């Protein structure tokens, strides 16, 4: 009797593992397909950590401009420049595509604590979060090539 129950449980476990393995493969395949399909407008802004050139690669493959493509006014420091570009995007209705893929410690970033609390990306994300009603219509977030909700709405 006990042997039958154990055998039955092993079968269920095996089927469950197979189900999740196959589902995972399908999900991964879907993500890959979407990442190749991402298409941004030529004038869209692409934000996120530079991640050793991966943000630039995203802008090159999907379209759009990073901050490095825009002339920085002399009198602004980098964070002021970034926030001004965000404000101008909100005013003009320019789409902002924020790649979260390489944001480290997202909960810490959103709370403004931890070792990444003072990075440019952290300041940008917290600024968008604090002014969400103004930015909601122009912001799109991405993780590993697929669109995701704003991190504070996940």
């Amino acid at each position: 009797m006990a042997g039958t129950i154990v055998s039955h449980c092993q079968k269920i476990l095996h089927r469950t593992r197979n189900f999740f393995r196959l589902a995972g493969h399908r999900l991964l395949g879907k993500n890959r397909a979407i990442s190749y399909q991402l298409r941004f407008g030529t004038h869209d802004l692409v934000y996120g950590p530079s991640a050793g050139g991966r943000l630039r690669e995203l802008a090159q493959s999907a379209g759009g401009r990073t901050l490095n493509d825009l002339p920085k006014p002399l009198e602004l420091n980098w964070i002021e420049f970034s926030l001004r570009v965000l404000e101008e995007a909100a005013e003009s209705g320019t789409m902002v595509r924020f790649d979260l893929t390489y944001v480290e410690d997202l909960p810490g970033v959103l709370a403004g604590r931890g070792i990444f609390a003072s990075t440019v990306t952290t300041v940008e994300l917290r600024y968008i979060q604090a002014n969400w009603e103004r930015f909601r219509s122009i912001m799109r977030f991405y993780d590993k090539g697929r669109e995701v909700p704003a991190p504070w709405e996940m």
Partner: protein
Amino acid sequence: MGNVALNGTGGSIHIDTRADRWSQCYLVASERIYLGAETLSYLVSRLLSALSSDTEEVIGEISGHKIRWVLSLAEGHCTLYVARCHSERILFWQNAEAKVIGTITLSQVEMAQWRKQLEMLL
């Protein structure tokens, strides 16, 4: 690919082109300062544009010179501006806090040398 040193009066720009064309830049003068990184194609095209015609708008003045934006870098968030002064070009590096951290002056001969070096990277 290695390092490229673009030399001028007052300092040099060193470009480290090793890492799959994501290239790191340094300002080398009295000390070596990390400026940031970008793709090699971005660096070459933007630096060549700074040496040729005045394609960008004048966006301000430094020490009485009319300044045009040239490029900005990821990671270090330094920005390069250029001014035309007679036959020379003056390059101003600004750090992420918008403070000028270095100036490089290029003669006609040095500009020709930069063009040659940059075109070889394409």
